[in-house]
């Protein structure tokens, strides 16, 4: 497409053409009306002048007879102007006047008529006039008229003006349209060029904003906001892959080192054994990280596993029962409060995994900062409105408000937790599982400590759920096993 063709095809140009046409039509109507009104006004004026003239001449006749009328007409004829006069006898013989010839029918009427005539002293040209015939008492006929050449001339001027202005209008409209279109096109081209550059990989690029606040600016601003969001997301993704690279590299390096050590220690079966066991441990850790990453990726891509309605209360009490002993063994006071039926749609294994991750975290980081204080861990499950809340509370040092979003990201571990083993994926996975189930993982202040809440939408009904096998209730007070 040529540049000109592109210009003609722009919306701005098409609009300009349409506007010119509409405007030209409107202008025509206005000019036509003005012309008609001008004519009416001028004709009325002419008629009045003629009537006044006739009245004047009739007065002259009344005062001084036909002689005075003739003198008066002769005087008036000498003056320049478009007035015409003709005084005839009853028989029609001209007495005085500046009209040489007239259509005979003219004299038969007494109202204002438009007629053609020939002036005295002219042979060819026929003129147009408005005229009126008046019968004087002595049966003289008096014709008084006014040439309408000027009127015609005015109308012609108006016609020309109209034509010319219409032409200009269309021309200016078209040129204006082209200019506007070109201006818009230039901006659109600028935006396209920027977009192409951004598509080419320069994600920091932004669309030009002129600052006029017009619709193109608003569009560009919105697209820029979108680009900023995409850039953030991509940056996040890059960070994640950098993190993955780093966090997989660390255990891989350790694994390699252990293998290296094992090679050098072939003489001592005991150390060799230890090295090999370490290698297997590191490999298992890698597999665990890998599985968690895969699960997060799956959960985030929304490829939901088989959906079924299950009772989250049963899952919560199962998990509570599973972790209670481990908590006690660590001297953590474990309690749980679980409502009766909490139907949730999704996958019970995943919800169990998410709860287990929260409890793992609680056991690891829920140790109170204060010396001598007892660590407590509390699992509760209840419904609030249409939401099932599964929460795990501890009395540890908690997560500062500023870090709460960050710790949900993959591999993010707060400085305080670096000394403990872990991959930094537990909360990410729990959050991904919550999102997959149409819910969210929220971290709240437990003053002191952390309250991690998995919020899930309550399913409408609990179908085909076998009555939960009653596991010994996990009491608020830890029971001694022996």
């Amino acid at each position: 497409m040529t540049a000109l063709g592109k210009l003609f095809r722009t919306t701005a140009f098409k609009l300009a053409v349409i506007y010119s046409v509409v405007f030209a039509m409107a202008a025509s109507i206005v000019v036509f009306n003005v012309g008609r009104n001008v004519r009416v006004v001028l004709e009325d004026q002419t008629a009045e002048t003629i009537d006044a003239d006739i009245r004047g001449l009739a007065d002259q006749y009344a005062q001084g007879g036909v002689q005075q009328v003739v003198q008066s007409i002769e005087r008036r004829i000498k003056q320049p102007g478009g007035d015409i006069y003709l005084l005839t006898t009853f028989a029609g013989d001209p007495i005085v006047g500046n009209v040489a010839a007239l259509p005979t029918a003219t004299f038969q009427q007494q109202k204002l008529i438009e007629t053609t005539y020939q002036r005295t002293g002219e042979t060819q040209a026929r003129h147009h006039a408005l005229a009126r015939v008046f019968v004087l008492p002595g049966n003289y006929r008096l014709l008084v008229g006014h040439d309408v050449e000027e009127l015609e001339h005015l109308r012609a001027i108006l016609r020309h003006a109209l034509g010319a202005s219409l032409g200009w209008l269309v021309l200016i409209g078209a040129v204006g349209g082209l200019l506007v279109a070109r201006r818009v096109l230039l901006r659109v081209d600028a935006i396209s060029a920027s977009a192409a550059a951004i598509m080419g990989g320069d994600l920091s690029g932004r669309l030009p904003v002129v600052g006029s606040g017009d619709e193109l600016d608003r569009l560009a601003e919105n697209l820029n906001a979108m680009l900023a969001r995409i850039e953030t997301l991509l940056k996040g993704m890059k960070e994640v892959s950098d993190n993955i690279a780093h966090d997989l590299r660390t255990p891989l390096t350790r694994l390699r080192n252990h293998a290296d050590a094992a090679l050098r220690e072939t003489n001592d079966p005991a150390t060799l054994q230890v090295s090999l066991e370490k290698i297997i441990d590191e490999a298992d850790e890698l597999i665990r990280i890998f599985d968690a990453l895969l699960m997060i990726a799956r959960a985030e891509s929304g490829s939901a596993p088989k959906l079924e309605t299950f009772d989250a209360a049963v899952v919560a009490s199962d998990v509570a029962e599973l972790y209670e002993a481990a908590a006690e063994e660590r001297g953590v006071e474990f309690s749980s409060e679980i409502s009766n039926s909490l139907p949730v749609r999704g996958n019970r294994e995943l919800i169990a995994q998410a709860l287990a991750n929260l409890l793992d975290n609680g056991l690891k980081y829920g140790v109170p900062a204060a010396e001598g204080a007892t660590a407590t861990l509390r699992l509760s499950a209840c419904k609030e409105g249409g939401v099932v809340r599964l929460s795990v509370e501890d009395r540890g040092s908690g997560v500062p408000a500023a870090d709460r979003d960050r710790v949900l990201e993959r591999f993010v571990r707060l400085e305080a937790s670096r000394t403990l083993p872990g991959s930094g994926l537990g909360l990410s996975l729990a959050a991904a599982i919550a999102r997959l189930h149409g819910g969210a993982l929220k971290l709240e202040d437990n003053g002191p400590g952390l309250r991690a809440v998995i919020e899930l939408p309550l399913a409408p009904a609990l179908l085909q759920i076998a009555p939960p096998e009653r596991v010994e209730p996990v009491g608020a007070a830890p029971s001694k096993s022996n």
Partner: protein
Amino acid sequence: MSDMRLLVIEDDSEGAAYLVKAFREQGHVADHSADGLDGYARACEGDYDVLIVDRMLPKLDGLSLISSLRAQKIETPALILSALGQVDDRVKGLRAGGDDYLPKPYAFSELLARVEVLARRKGLAGAQDTVYRVADLELDRLSHKLTRSGKEIALQPREFRLLEYLMSHAGQVVTRTMLLENVWDYHFDPQTNVIDVHISRLRGKIDKGHATQLLHTIRGAGYMIRDGAR
């Protein structure tokens, strides 16, 4: 348990060689098929105790292989090995007629423990004792009573199920994941040693004050309940 006849159907030759060698070292007979059709033919002919089937195989995939066998009324227990370890994949595998499912990569000890359990299940097909006995420990599955040396021991329901599972596999290694799967019916991977703590509680109830330990920890594999005298 010794002298199992195993068929490893796996197209990765290195992985298969490792498995066959490892099984033979344990005193078992292990054959290898490199594709689905060959594996199907051998499984139909040979008298195997357990089939170890990779899910993705040339010519005939693992799941189709197992459902074809089941259609032929060949009920040899089959354990599916798969790189697809997600929750759904396990369900699909078991639905196709597999008896157990182990995602790759796995620890050999885990595989061995599961294969032994499957082989034993084949031997016992249908016959389910109502009373399990290991040395002087007696568990009555109907009355839910547990005695050791005639003295009754009170267990919580979950502890009872845990012991019941261990005793039904007396003399066999039972891994932590097997316990989580069979006693708690979950397949996730707890970071905390939750199972170990439950085992140690159980051990406190059944072994404490007795000269012979019955509930043993098998290093790097899991647990086993057996008569310590043997």
